[in-house]
Every structure is written in C-alpha cells, then in structure tokens.
C-alpha cells in the first residue's frame, strides 16, 4: 500500500534571535524525521511541551515547509485539529463554522449545507448562535472538532484536542474517530498523555528534543 504522506529526513529550524546588534541564533525544532502515514492508521506521538510535537503536525499539514528534507504528499487532504485557533471572537458559532470551513477548503454552499449537522454534533444548542468570545475552552474545542470532523480529510492531525471537553463529548469524539478509522482515514494524535495514546493508537512514537523514536 502506498503511504498517504511521507517524511524523509525532515528537519526544521526556527530563527529565534538576530538583528543588527546580535548574531542570528537558530533553534532546531525537528531533526531528521522519517515517518510514513498509511491509510487507516492511528499514529500516536508522545512528547512534552516544546519537544517538537506541534511543529511536526505543522509540517504534516503542509502549513510549514521543512528547512531540509522532503515531505511527499500523495494527494491526501489533511486537517489540523486544535482548540479553535482562528475563530473570530465577535462572530457567533455559526459564522465561525462558515469561515473556518471555507478556510479549510470547502465552498460556501458545501459548508452551509452541513451547518445543521455540525450544530447537532457540537451539542452547543443556543450557544451556536452566540458570539464565540463567551464560549468556554471546552465549547471552543467542541466547535473546532465538529467542524474538522465534517470536513472529512484523509488525515486528521489532532493536537491534544480530545483531552478537552467534558466526559460526554470525549466519548463522542472517540467514537467518531473509531468510525473514521473504519473508513480508512488516518489519524495522527499528539499528546503528553501516554494513557490516551496507548488507548487509541496502534503505532506509537516518542518525540524528544526534535528527535522521533518508535516505541
């Protein structure tokens, strides 16, 4: 089987310092990472804060280009699930769904036809029509997750999101993820929680100081 996404010797460097008075300083976020993602796989990546987890997801989603090495995407669509990044706080949930859905590649009619479904799935009730600024963290996470689930990408990239939200929503999102796996969708889940990774993932990795190791 052909992998959906392949990383070959990927390294990523950020410039952290440097102006006319100081020398440029760089920080290696990722060092020579090799990874293949096949259809239907759940990959779990455990790492502490600052270990390079989120950078890896950004590379996989194609948002950031590696400094060296290669990312080969064999035509897979990806969606990075985080806790409602990029929501406009002054707009209500519904408008944010439209905007976010379109930013993730849907046409306006497509996302509008999914509004009811997303509303139901999110379980936000009347809050769906209220400004996002009054949402709790858990509610934002629900909305973000509900959008991405309905966008239906080939590879879900999930950054801690399931650990947010209440018990009911956690159960529901886990069930959805298992359903997606049956459809041969792949999932990359990063977390600092070993328990969550053990419970959900069939391939496990650890990331430490930008180096990825299979465990």
């Amino acid at each position, binding site marked *: 089987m052909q992998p959906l996404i392949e990383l070959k010797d990927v390294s990523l460097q*950020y*410039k*952290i310092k440097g102006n006319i008075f100081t020398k440029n300083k760089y920080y290696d976020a990722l060092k020579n990472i090799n990874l293949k993602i096949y259809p239907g796989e759940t990959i779990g990546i455990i790492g502490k804060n600052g270990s390079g987890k989120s950078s890896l997801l*950004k590379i996989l*989603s*194609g*948002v*950031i*280009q590696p400094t060296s090495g290669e990312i080969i995407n064999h035509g897979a669509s*990806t969606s*990075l699930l*985080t806790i409602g*990044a*990029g929501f*406009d706080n*002054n*707009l209500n949930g519904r*408008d944010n769904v*439209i*905007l976010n859905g*379109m*930013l*993730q*590649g849907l*046409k*306006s009619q497509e996302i509008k036809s999914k509004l009811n479904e997303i509303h139901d799935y999110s379980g936000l009730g009347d809050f769906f029509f209220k*400004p996002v600024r009054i949402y709790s963290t858990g509610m934002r996470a629900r909305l973000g997750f509900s959008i991405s689930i309905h966008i239906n990408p080939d590879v879900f990239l999930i950054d801690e999101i399931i650990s947010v939200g209440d018990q009911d929503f956690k159960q529901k999102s886990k069930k959805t993820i298992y359903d997606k796996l049956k459809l041969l969708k792949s999932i990359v889940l990063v977390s600092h929680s070993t328990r969550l990774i053990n419970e959900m993932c069939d391939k496990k990795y650890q990331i430490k100081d930008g180096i990825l190791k299979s465990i």
Partner: protein
Amino acid sequence: MKSKQKFYWLIDLIWTKSLLNLKSEASRNVLSYVWWILEPFLYMLVFYVVFEMLLNRGGENYTTFLIIGLIPWMWFMKSVSGSSSSIINSHALITQIKIHPVIFPLTIVVQTLVKQIPVFILLIGFVWLQGFEPTTNWFWLIPITILELIIIVIFSLVVAALIPFVRDLNYLVPTGLTFLMFMSGTFYDYKNIGEQWQDVFLMNPMAYLIKCYRDIFFNTEAINTYNLSVWFLISITLLIMTLHLFRKLGSILPKLTIQ
C-alpha cells in the same frame, strides 16, 4: 481542485471573509455601521477646521475640493495600512490551516472597498448639491476608480508581503502614508507648486488620481486618454508581477510569521 475551481473558491472565500469581518467589526461598536460614514466625515472636519477656518486658506469651493481629494485618499490609506500587518496578524490561522497568505491583504482590500461604496455615493451627491451638475465627463470616474483599485491592490500586497520579512517596516507604514498624503495634493492644488515640479509630482499615482477626480467633478480639464492608458498599462503589469511574487512567497510566509 482544478485551478478554475480553486479560483472561484478563493473569490468566494475572500468575499465571505470580508463580509464576516465587517460584521464582526461593526458588532464591537455602539454606533456599528454608522462609523462607515462618521469616520471619513470626522477626518475631513479636521482639515476643514485647520485650512478653512483657522488659516483661511480655502478660497471658493474649498470644502468640495477638499472632499474630492480626501475621500479617494482615505480609501487608499485605509486599505494599505490595514493590509500592512494583515499577514502577521493572521499567524494563528496561517500556521494551523494550509491557506495562501494572499487572502489576508485581499480581504482587507475588499472590506475597505465595501465600506467605501456608501462614502463614494455621498461624495457624488455632495458635489452635485454644491452645484456641479453631472456631465457625461463623470463617466470617467469609472476607469479612474478601477485604476485606483488596481493601485491599492499593488501597494497593499507589496507592503503585506514585505513586513513578515522585516517587521521594522511596520513602523514606516504610517510615516510613509503621511508623507504620501502630503505629496498627493489631498488638501491643496498641485498647480500651486513650482511649474518645474508639476510633472514629477504627478508621477505619484495618488497625486495623478486625485488630480483626475477633481478634473472630472469640477469639469475643468478633459482626461487625457493617452496618459490614462499608460497608467493602466504600468499598473496592470505591476499587478501581474505582484501576484507572481505572491505565488512564490506562498509557502515561505507562514513560517516567517512565527519566528
């Protein structure tokens, strides 16, 4: 997606995002959409108080003259200053979703354009009420407005693309815009400057545009079709070059916004 489909999606996205941004912006203020008219009015009031009342520099029809200069200027200024930090301000989005950064300055341009429409209508109404009857010459407003839009897009995109590379430029935008405002004859007539400078002065696109707006509304001088065509040719070429530049920068800009 095919490139044609992708193009329509991009237009659809920019349009939807602009409207939602306007809605979001208006929801924050007590006076909501009234600000679209109120803000340009207050801005003009400043110039009116200084030049007409305090300095007594105005002369006949100065208010009308001032308005015709300032409204197109404000359109340009707001688009460029809004676009300048649009890409770095969207770092949360650009680093989460794979999306071309060009949509952020373009959204600002569209948003400002929408706000500009009622202001332009009021401008036309005001000039008419001042006794300058519309003539067929007023049809020239269409190409002149289109030319201004193209110039706005070029400036907005270039500034938005440069700032992620060198953040310092952000400090230069307000100063640069103020300088350009003084150099564009917004509140004075270019004919008052030394004759040897006039041609150079009109090489500034905003100075040229403001001159054209005044010639049209006051019916003083016919638009020179040759000059206008040259302006169109230059700006369309620059526009294509800018869009090409953005195509190349698309994958570089997101990383720059977080480092």
